[in-house]
């Protein structure tokens, strides 16, 4: 455990000196600034800083996965190809210590990226909208951190299972696209095949489940059901920027908050474990 923390700390130290990473974090921060500030600057917000809480999830839901993948997909495969992994493997850390350490180090990187974005969002909220709903904002940041961690877990797991940069890159890009913009299309395709191919009419709950199965949609769902009702409840505002408060009362267990949360955790842990198992059995030469 101690050894994986040392690996994590040194890994973070190395990663935070990467210009590419700072480029991605920069783009993310600028988009957070634009998306949260512009609506308030162009027209006055009837709900004050609460608008900022909703608005920040839009760039976060899209760009946190991208940033996490860029920050993590080379964590092990890149070092394996260059040979710096041999430096670590010549020292006491076991392969388990290394996978765990890389996961923790890159999680810290995405944590810093999210913290920077949310500080920018908070400043915008206070300056443009006049206030900052503190608790919901922190809760949203926590959910965003979970989303980031899930994508770090996914890409570190992939990275552990692959031996070269190029082999790690293709699935990493695929991951961001399939679980992001393509996901609703995939759910529609599943529905189509079930309906016309197998003559099975999927229930609305099943379709909702398929939708929240993707970590980014799960994140959106959790925001809508955990943060939004309290944030907008008393205002009678139905919808803002495509986000609508969701009530889970009476919903099946697989649409309850705890289950969606567990899915996010599974997206984090399962790939890391599978990646480790593949990594622990492979030849490093």
């Amino acid at each position, binding site marked *: 455990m101690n050894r994986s923390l040392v690996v994590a700390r040194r890994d973070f130290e190395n990663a935070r000196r990467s210009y590419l990473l700072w480029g991605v974090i920069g783009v993310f921060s600028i988009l957070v600034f634009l998306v949260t500030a512009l609506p308030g600057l162009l027209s006055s917000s009837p709900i004050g800083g609460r608008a900022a809480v909703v608005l920040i999830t839009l760039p976060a839901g899209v760009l946190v996965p991208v940033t996490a993948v860029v920050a993590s997909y080379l964590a092990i495969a890149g*070092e394996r190809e260059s040979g710096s992994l041999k430096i670590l493997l010549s*020292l006491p850390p076991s392969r388990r210590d290394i996978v765990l350490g890389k996961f923790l180090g890159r999680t810290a990187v995405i944590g810093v990226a999210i913290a920077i974005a949310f500080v920018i969002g908070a400043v915008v909220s206070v300056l443009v909208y006049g206030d900052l709903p503190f608790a919901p904002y922190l809760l949203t940041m926590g959910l965003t951190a979970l989303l980031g961690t899930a994508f770090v877990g996914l890409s570190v797991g992939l990275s552990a299972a692959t031996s070269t940069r190029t082999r790690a890159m293709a699935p990493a890009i695929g991951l961001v696209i399939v679980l992001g913009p393509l996901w609703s299309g995939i759910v529609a395709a599943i529905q189509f095949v079930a309906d016309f191919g197998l003559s099975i009419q999927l229930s609305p709950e099943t379709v909702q489940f398929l939708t929240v199965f993707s970590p980014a949609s799960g994140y959106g769902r959790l925001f809508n059901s955990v943060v939004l009702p309290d944030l907008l409840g008393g205002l009678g505002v139905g919808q803002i920027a495509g986000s609508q408060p969701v009530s889970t009362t009476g919903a099946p267990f697989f649409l309850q908050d705890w289950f969606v949360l567990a899915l996010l955790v599974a997206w984090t842990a399962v790939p890391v474990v599978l990646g480790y198992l593949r990594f622990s059995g492979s030849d490093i030469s």
Partner: protein
Amino acid sequence: MPAIQTHDLTKRFGRDVYAVDGLDLTVQEGEVFGFLGPNGAGKSTTINMLLDFIRPTSGHATILGHDAQAETTTIRQRIGVLPEGYDLYPRLSGRTHIEMAAELKEADDDPDAVVDRVGLDREDARRKAGEYSQGMRQRLALGMALVGDPDLLMLDEPTNGLDPNGAREMREIVRDHADRGATVFFSSHILEQVQAVCDRVGILTDGTMVAVDTIDGLRDEVGTGSTLTLTLDAVPSVDIADVPGISNVVVQDGGVRVTCTDPAAKIAVIDRVRDAGATVEDIETTEASLEDLFAAYTERSEPSGVTEAET
């Protein structure tokens, strides 16, 4: 307890490419062992198996009495490694590398002292490792290996990329570490590197060990003794081939060249030509180099249909 021991260690790539084939090797505690062989002989594959970078197809290895596959952390706390084909962390300083090695080995080495010991400039140690020359990289990697005063140093081609001066310093550090009572195991395809520092050498060809002995012992075994070249005022008409302890006589313009398997034969040869009336103008002797030994062994080991693997 041996520092390194392998039993029937084998690594097969694909279906029939044996990079290492049934290797039995014992390196005693406290000795400097040179692991010799041409490129592609299986040296790195063997070391990578000893370090658990790759897994043997069959066979078994222990390092300092610990199972090389099952007890990697325990082993790496007690050994220092300079692996083949490694890379440094380009964005971290040399000093940070040393600090990281010390943290992970739970050693309290002073980074400056390590940097000094391997001849790296303290200013350079504060620069990013990505800016290092090959020689500086090797020095830093050796420094990381030396952290924690390891009982066993395993160096894979440590003089690669070093200039002659750097290679000499590397040998001195190796010798110095051995004098502290540690075991040193290092591979090389450059024979002079090994000759100068090793107590024993093993010669690996096509994945099999063809010889393990002291350098003197190998010399005796192969029979390539030293060569005596005499420059004479006139070649005498005397037969010297019957002098005991010589194996080969070449009469050439202005002298003779004799291969002596017995050191005492040299004086006998000189006496013989002087008795015949010749004046000896110059005497030159050359010891058989490992190069000669190496050629002798490599040729002697029969081609067994084993395919050479580049690893």
